[in-house]
């Protein structure tokens, strides 16, 4: 048996091929639904990948990670609203704003541990959320429409949905690769050592705070870029992008897919969002023979099925879906 042909690798390879082929399916059928859905999934997978860097590898449970989606998104939205639609200006500002915010939040929150850390990151995110709600000039809690996607050179138009999708996919793959390089580098081992036993890390001579802070900023910056993509994708920004439930979704993606695993966040993002899309229809189908006409209303409660599913993964599959696939590999080997 070839060494790399493990169940996990086969699933990941299949997912990547599937992701690459989606625009072709859309072109062939003329139905853009899948392309729109998966553009969104790819962008959120990138956000989850950035969260995995701090949550999975660093043990920093940020409960406000979606705030960077909001900051990246609003940077695009506000600049576009003020007539600055050049991507060469918008994107660096979106990235810099996210990095700066992460630096501030990290500098304060990383002095705490455990529950306090969770609460402080949540508090900062909610602060920005309500700030967004108060921005009357930019649509307040209704949000605002983007009249134009970011403008780069004429040859590359983000309004071309296929091109935009491939751009998102390329950035996602780059993010996954970057995180993989980082976590296996000297820096990454410091981050993981600090998750495992921070006290010991200091005793052997590491000033862990500054490493954790840099890690926090890298994750926030990466997520800010995902926010810029998301704004361009939906052509709309609103405070809902950074509501705490969205931060919760990102955590669910990471935990469901498998914390501290290279492809876990991607697997988790696909699993969660495909379930969200398909569960209502599946429930309707299953309930129809039993309750007849009322099946549509039953399907509205699809989260009753999603919740226990997630609970099962947390209770019985510690490594998430990625962990399940790896345990298949061990059983076989």
């Amino acid at each position, binding site marked *: 048996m070839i060494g790399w042909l493990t169940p996990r690798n086969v699933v990941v390879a299949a997912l990547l091929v599937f992701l690459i082929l989606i625009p072709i399916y859309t072109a062939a059928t003329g139905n853009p639904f899948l392309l729109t859905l998966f553009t969104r999934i790819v962008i959120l997978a990138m956000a989850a990948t950035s969260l995995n860097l701090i949550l999975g590898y660093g043990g920093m449970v940020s409960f406000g990670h979606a705030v960077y989606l909001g900051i990246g998104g609003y940077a695009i939205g506000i600049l576009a609203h003020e007539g600055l639609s050049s991507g060469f200006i918008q994107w660096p500002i979106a990235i810099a704003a996210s990095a700066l915010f992460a630096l501030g939040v990290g500098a304060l929150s990383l002095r705490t541990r455990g529950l306090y850390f969770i609460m402080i990151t949540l508090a900062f995110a909610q602060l920005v959320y309500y700030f967004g709600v108060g921005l009357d000039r930019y649509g307040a809690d209704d949000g605002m429409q983007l009249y134009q996607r970011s403008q780069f050179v004429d040859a590359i138009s983000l309004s071309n949905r296929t091109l935009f999708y491939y751009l998102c996919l390329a950035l996602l793959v780059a993010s996954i690769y970057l995180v993989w*390089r*980082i976590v*296996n*580098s*000297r*820096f*990454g*081992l*410091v981050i*993981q*050592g600090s998750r*495992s*036993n921070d*006290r*010991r*890390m*200091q*005793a*052997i*001579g*590491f*000033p*862990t705070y500054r*490493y954790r802070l*840099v890690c926090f900023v890298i994750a926030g910056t990466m997520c800010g870029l995902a926010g810029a993509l998301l704004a361009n994708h939906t052509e709309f920004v609103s405070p809902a992008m950074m509501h705490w439930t969205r931060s919760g979704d990102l955590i669910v993606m990471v935990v469901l897919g498998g914390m501290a695993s290279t492809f876990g966040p991607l697997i988790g993002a696909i699993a969660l969002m495909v379930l969200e899309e398909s569960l209502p229809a599946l429930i309707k189908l299953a309930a129809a023979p039993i309750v007849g006409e009322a099946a549509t209303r039953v399907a509205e409660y699809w989260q009753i099925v999603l919740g226990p599913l997630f609970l099962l993964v947390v209770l019985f599959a510690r490594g998430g879906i990625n962990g399940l696939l790896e345990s298949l590999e061990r059983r076989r080997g």
Partner: protein
Amino acid sequence: MAEPLLRIEGLTKHFGGVVATDGVNLEVPPGELHAVIGPNGAGKTTLIGQLTGEVVSDAGRVRFAGEDITSQPVYRRSRRGLARSFQITSLFNDFTALDNVALAVQAHAGHSFRFWRDARREDELREPARAALARVGLAGRENTIVSSMSHGEHRQLEIAMTLATRPRMLLLDEPMAGMGPEESVRMIALLRELKRDLTILLIEHDMDAVFALADRISVLVYGQVIASGEPAAIRANEDVRKAYLGDQDDHG
């Protein structure tokens, strides 16, 4: 007498109304193995904490290698060459033995803001780590995950990590804790070998080990050093017998 490597002056620590360390003075010259003994609750671990910087002292000074380190953070003392092992094993349980020691090497190999190269393939980190593992008798166990190693092996790994930071002085907090007789004998042999190159402050309950190894012994009772001297003098000291050794003899 040579300039002491470690000099403790009037070191004090209160926890609420309890005095854990009460004006401790202690000097350890280079090359000495100095043992600190004392009954449970004498403040031995607090003292180690104050020396490594985890516990902030209320009063007094700590000088190490001619430098006042009283208010330096933990990591900087480690960089100066003051290394500790933990009484309760404190390792990176989800890492391999080699990863554990390699991290300790890395801590003293420049800054770690290196984001790209695979650190597990850097000979510069792996080779010294392998050597430290071999030195404590863990050759062949490099790729074992720490959580699946035995207690005795954990204690050996503790020492290997401390050694890997290339220290000038070791602070060993009960390295023999929880060991069987055979493991203890091996640890004593190891410490005797380390003693040749390193200055050591040893906190230990095992009296056989202490008297076999120590050049000098200080006896800590209720946070105060009641006696300090060579093993024979400590054995003969009446106060010590009353406070500690007599009690120890009763238990065999």
